[in-house]
């Protein structure tokens, strides 16, 4: 039997401080934290959460854990630690591993490693096509039926660009109650692309990645999903125009959801002048107008949730010339701070809203019954404990990931996750526990 007392916390940052009691992984009581403490059993671990905000544990639909294949940049273990420190209780590990997670064996391996480590629920994302090659459907059904219980499929890193393959994948997924997560990038429009196609890239002589390459695929796939009655999820939305397409599709009743990354909520292509590849990411950093559109869409729900696209890379793949660098940024440990800064700091979302975009909606999209639940008695004790007043400076070398490619290096961010609870187990912030 596990038990935990979280003292003095304010669920969703609302009301008076409370004590949350956890028994056997479930919230067993939520009581006012009165001055006159009732006696605590001597052996009950107490997490001092005075001044903290409790949110449901975060769910990341889009993480690259790099295992198997690039264990020099991240492993399921180091990635799990980063996730727990970032407030996550469930992450979806993208399929572009080596070998690719396009079969039940790899999917079960990832799932089992995650369970052994036990810091966060690691759900493998299955590839849509064999080897991410875009030509032949992977065995979606076998992966769905495996111990890993795969329900999210994506060729992320590559767009499922052949409309017929995409149509078949969407149709096939209906029987599995799965969702196809599309990396929306028309490859013929992004040959050699290095940066957002706009004034900045033109000056810097970087081949452009036009917004229309994303918008056209999103429009096409919304129509295909509507036709198939399937569920479509759009990865890392980056363009204002995509938001308009999504709004239109949702109004028509298409079962489409969408995510935005923290970096697309904050950073713009103005950062590219130094040619430092830490700013290279796919889809690329776009304009300030796109950033504003991302924030507005996340606030009004056209974009459903935030996903990190956490993408660790080795030093030699980043400390090089721009064109040779791999795209991607770390995100797990900085996501909450960036969301607070860009959404709560601007008044676009309150803590309830942050709970929605970081936990509730992603859990719904992925069909996770035990995640993204309300903070109520009888619910699983999956919690992120946030210090809303914290100020901290990001140092890549201090992050739990093996890689250090954070674009926020040296930046002072607001708010920080100081504790994470996964079904009653404290997975981050154990140092705060007094027995």
């Amino acid at each position, binding site marked *: 039997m596990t038990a935990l007392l979280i003292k003095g916390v304010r669920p969703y940052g609302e009301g008076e401080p409370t004590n949350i009691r956890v028994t056997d992984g479930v919230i067993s009581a939520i009581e006012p934290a009165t001055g006159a403490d009732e006696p605590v059993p001597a052996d009950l671990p107490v997490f001092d959460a005075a001044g903290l905000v409790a949110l449901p544990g975060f769910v990341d639909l889009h993480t690259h854990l790099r295992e198997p294949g690039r264990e020099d940049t991240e492993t399921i273990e180091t990635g799990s630690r980063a996730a727990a420190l970032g407030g996550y209780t469930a992450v979806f590990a993208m399929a572009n591993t080596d070998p690719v997670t396009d079969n039940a064996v790899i999917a079960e391996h990832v799932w089992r490693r995650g369970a052994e480590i036990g810091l966060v629920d690691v759900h493998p994302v299955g590839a849509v096509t064999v080897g991410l090659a875009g030509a032949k459907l992977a065995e979606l059904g076998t992966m769905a039926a495996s111990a890993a219980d795969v329900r999210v499929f994506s060729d992320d890193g590559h767009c499922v660009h052949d409309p017929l393959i995409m149509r078949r994948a969407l149709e096939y997924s209906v029987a599995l109650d799965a969702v196809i997560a599309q990396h929306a990038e028309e490859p013929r429009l992004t040959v050699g692309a*290095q940066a957002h*196609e*706009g*004034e*900045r*890239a*033109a*000056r*810097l*002589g*970087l*081949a*452009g990645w*036009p917004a229309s390459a994303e918008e056209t695929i999103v429009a096409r796939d919304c129509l295909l999903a509507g036709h198939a009655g399937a569920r479509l999820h759009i990865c890392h939305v980056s363009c204002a125009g995509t938001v308009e397409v999504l709004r239109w599709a949702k109004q028509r009743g298409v079962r489409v959801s969408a995510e935005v990354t923290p970096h697309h909520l904050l950073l713009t292509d103005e950062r590219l002048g*130094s*040619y*430092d590849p830490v700013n290279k990411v796919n889809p690329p950093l776009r304009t300030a107008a796109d950033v504003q559109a991302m924030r507005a869409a996340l606030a009004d729900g056209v974009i459903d949730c935030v996903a990190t696209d956490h993408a660790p890379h080795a030093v*030699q793949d980043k*400390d*090089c*010339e*721009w*064109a*040779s660098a791999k795209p991607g940024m770390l995100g797990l440990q900085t996501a909450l701070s960036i969301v607070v800064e860009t959404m709560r700091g601007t008044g676009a979302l309150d803590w309830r809203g942050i709970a929605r975009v970081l936990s509730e909606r992603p859990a719904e999209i992925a069909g996770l019954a035990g995640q993204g639940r309300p903070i109520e008695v009888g619910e699983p004790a999956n919690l992120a404990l946030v210090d809303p007043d914290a100020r901290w400076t990001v140092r890549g070398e201090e992050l739990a990931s093996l890689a250090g490619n954070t674009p926020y290096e040296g930046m002072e961010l607001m708010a920080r996750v100081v504790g994470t609870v996964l079904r009653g187990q404290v997975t981050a912030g154990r140092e705060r526990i007094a027995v």
Partner: protein
Amino acid sequence: MKHLLTTEGLSAAEATAVLDTADTLKQTLLGREVRKLPTLRGRTVLTMFYENSTRTRVSFEIAGKWMSADVVNVSASGSSVGKGESLRDTVLTLRAAGADCVIARHPASGAAHRLAEWLGSAGTSVVNAGDGTHEHPTQALLDAATLRERLGSLDGRRIGIVGDVLHSRVARSNVHLLATLGAEVVLIAPPTLLPYGATNWPVRVSYTLDAELPTLDAVMMLRVQAERMHGGFFPSAREYSINYGLSEARAALLPEHAVVLHPGPMLRGMEIASAVADSAQAAITEQVRNGVHVRMAVLYHLLAGEEGAA
């Protein structure tokens, strides 16, 4: 000046100082038997060309040698570059070997910026000899030197840049430098060869060469690379030549004083008619000659001052 990476951001005063130095050097060396100045004795200059360009490399090499620098050519094929060594490791090795200046051409835009970051703390200067489709600042400086020679001043002059602006580092460097020096720049190309966003540059954009030629003080013809011709940027070489090639008949539309420039190597017949390239209006061989003096001037400004001085 510590490095020369771009003409964007170069002030009119800085650019003019380099051009004036180039003029003086040209006069100084005029008619001399021994074209050697002791100015950079004992300084080591490396040329690192990751793309073939005999003319630019040789121009830099002569410039360095006429200033008495020790010029070492690192050929990208004969060194560990060919063995897959990273750019960073290569330059750090060369820095350790004592280079005072690295002159680099690289197919990646921004490569020179990265080199400057890796080498700057050691006091090694970097000259961008062409980075991808970004900039080629010494080409723009030598073009400006040639235009100043022919036209007197660039202030208020109208210069047309014709052709593949999208992929041209020469065009980018010229756009910034010419605008800084007070010229009015007109980019003339089919829309497929103009960068998205070029309308926000300090330029005017035109799709019609014939309409622009009568009011130009100079026309700069850009190279059309073979791979672009097959990349669907325009229907055919023939159609390109018909619309944007500088034929004899078209050159006749230019004012008499107008100057014809081409950064070379030229595709005669396609971008420019032979008779035009060899005409008195063409300043193409002067461009090459001025290239040496401009590059000497750049080396002078980078290497002849106090270490760490602005």
